[in-house]
């Protein structure tokens, strides 16, 4: 009897006895891994993989500016969750750790009953099933999605925060779907159409107006794929709009309807919310692009480091295109060194940067600042607040400061 057959037979024997017996396999699992994995046959293949039980990284629950982060006692009021950037490698966010923001829960949607309607200023209103969309010519691209509320606590006094708390509302995936232009062409977009209402089929019926600029017409996608498999429910299963570089909220999830019009629809989400209040009492509206931003993820808030060699590492991104340069300061902004950008460096996508550093053991402040292909340089906190005050909630993208104390502990500060 070969090994595989033996294991299969043992497994079915065990299953047969499961009602009466405690399974030996279950006991082995409870006991943890063997002392020597070379002396015990390993686990059999399984239909859907999971990470090692030793890996515990998780999203962190959130509930708005100033609200405590976490699960448990805070859970009933959580309406977002933050990506553990401090634990991630490279530029891709595992789908299970992609941040969440929803406005009345994650809907349960049967994809066979889901439909996408395109109507309004088109020659022929059309209805698509998910299957039909999946049959159309498709494209894939890597892109970040960042909530415009990411780092919203940055406007106020610095709290004792990790990079997950401060910057965890951004994630990068490979997204797959149909280009919006393919569908607009099929429906026959009328010449007077200049805006498009995108509407989700969640309990918020979230609706946003999308300007039909050349950038949008070229790049917008109706996505069904995320990192090679179907979208996760939290990211819009079975269909979402992707507008690379634009604030997360307008990348409407659970997409059910696109309506073309000649003016913005002025929904709650683009008037009462997601507008940026300035010190003079006026508010910026339709601030869609996410400006150049970067953050050091190692070492970052909550870590403790020892003197000696470290590789400073972090993420940079810009909604206006590629990141062209990331500079790192290990002396609170007095001097700057150029970090190495790790390939691939893609437009509107997280870019990983790295810089070797020897920590002497003296307290200091670590910062990163990025430049994008338009030449735009990520501003300091002071410069940002000089223009926008501290009450705009959204679109905080200033340089992040991590203080390294003499004892090696790293904490969030407003330098």
């Amino acid at each position: 009897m070969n090994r595989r057959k033996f294991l299969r037979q043992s497994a079915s024997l065990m299953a047969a006895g499961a009602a009466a017996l405690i399974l030996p396999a279950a006991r082995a699992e409870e006991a943890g891994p063997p002392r020597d994995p070379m002396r015990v046959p390993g686990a059999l293949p399984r239909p859907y993989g999971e990470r090692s039980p030793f890996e515990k990284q998780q999203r962190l629950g959130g509930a708005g500016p100033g609200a405590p982060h976490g699960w448990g006692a805070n859970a009933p009021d959580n309406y977002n969750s933050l990506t553990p950037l401090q634990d991630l490698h490279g530029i891709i966010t595992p789908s299970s750790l992609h941040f969440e923001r929803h406005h009345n829960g994650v809907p349960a949607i049967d994809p066979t009953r889901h439909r996408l309607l395109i109507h309004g200023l088109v020659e022929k209103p059309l209805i698509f099933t998910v299957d039909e969309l999946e049959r159309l010519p498709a494209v894939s691209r890597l892109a970040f999605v960042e909530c415009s509320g990411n780092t919203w606590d940055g406007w106020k006094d610095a709290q004792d925060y990790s990079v997950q708390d401060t910057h965890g509302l951004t994630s990068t995936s490979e997204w797959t779907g149909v280009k919006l232009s393919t569908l607009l062409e099929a429906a026959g977009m009328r010449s007077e159409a200049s805006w498009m209402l995108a509407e989700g089929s969640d309990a918020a019926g979230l609706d946003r107006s999308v300007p039909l600029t050349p950038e949008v017409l070229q790049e917008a996608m109706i996505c069904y794929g995320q990192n090679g498999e179907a979208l996760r429910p939290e990211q819009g299963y079975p269909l979402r709009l992707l507008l690379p570089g634009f604030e997360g909220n307008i990348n409407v999830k659970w997409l059910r309807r696109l309506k073309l019009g000649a003016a913005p629809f002025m929904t709650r989400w683009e008037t009462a919310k997601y507008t940026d209040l300035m010190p003079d009492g006026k508010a910026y509206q339709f601030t869609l692009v996410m400006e150049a931003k970067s953050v050091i993820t190692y070492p970052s808030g909550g870590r403790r480091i020892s003197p000696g060699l470290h590789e400073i590492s972090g993420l940079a991104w810009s909604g206006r295109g590629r990141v062209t340069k990331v500079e790192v300061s290990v002396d609170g902004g007095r001097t700057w060194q150029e970090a190495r950008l790790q390939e691939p460096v893609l437009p509107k996508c997280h870019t990983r940067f790295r810089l070797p550093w020897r920590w002497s053991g003296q307290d200091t402040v670590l910062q990163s600042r990025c430049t994008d292909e338009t030449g735009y340089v990520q501003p300091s906190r002071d410069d940002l607040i000089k223009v926008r005050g501290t009450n705009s909630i959204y679109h905080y993208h200033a340089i992040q400061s991590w203080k390294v104390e003499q004892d090696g502990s790293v904490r969030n500060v407003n330098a």
Partner: protein
Amino acid sequence: MRSSTVTRAAGLALASLGIAAVVLGDARPGWPADENGGKERIGRPATQEEIRPWNIDVSPTGEGLPPGRGTVQQGSRLFATKCAACHGPTGIEGPKDKLVGGQNTLQAAKPVKTIGSYWPYATTLYDYINRAMPFDAPQSLTPDEVYSVIAWLLFQNKVIAEDMVIDAHTLPQIQMPNRNGFVADPRPDVR
């Protein structure tokens, strides 16, 4: 030909946005022609009857507002039973969004953004309440109920008189206090 329609429309869209036009490339993904030399049809035509129940949005012009009417008095009762648990008895106590008050606080250290102090369009109230409220039972209100609760909220915010009837005709004509409080995105504004 379809492709040139998209290109032309994009040009117009841009003109209205004040952005310099860029000619789009052929956006067609290059589907093979069918035996008649045409493009394969995708999607299914939607009829007006099919579109109607999906077409729930309301624009600032009032497009999309259904027949029906509401009064402050009816709205007061409805708010107490269906809204006050989250927004407080008079719309200011919370625990969820403050809906009333806050006028003239937008330049203050702690601005209070409410319907009366911040929202630029009254029609947005219909669009949002009808689709998303109450939070635990969205889309459960009748048009008369939505109009009524809007009437009460606008009266509480001192935007309308107590005897005003809210309907598809009157709602789009209401001038909200912060109607001119918004400016187009000027970024990059910080360098």
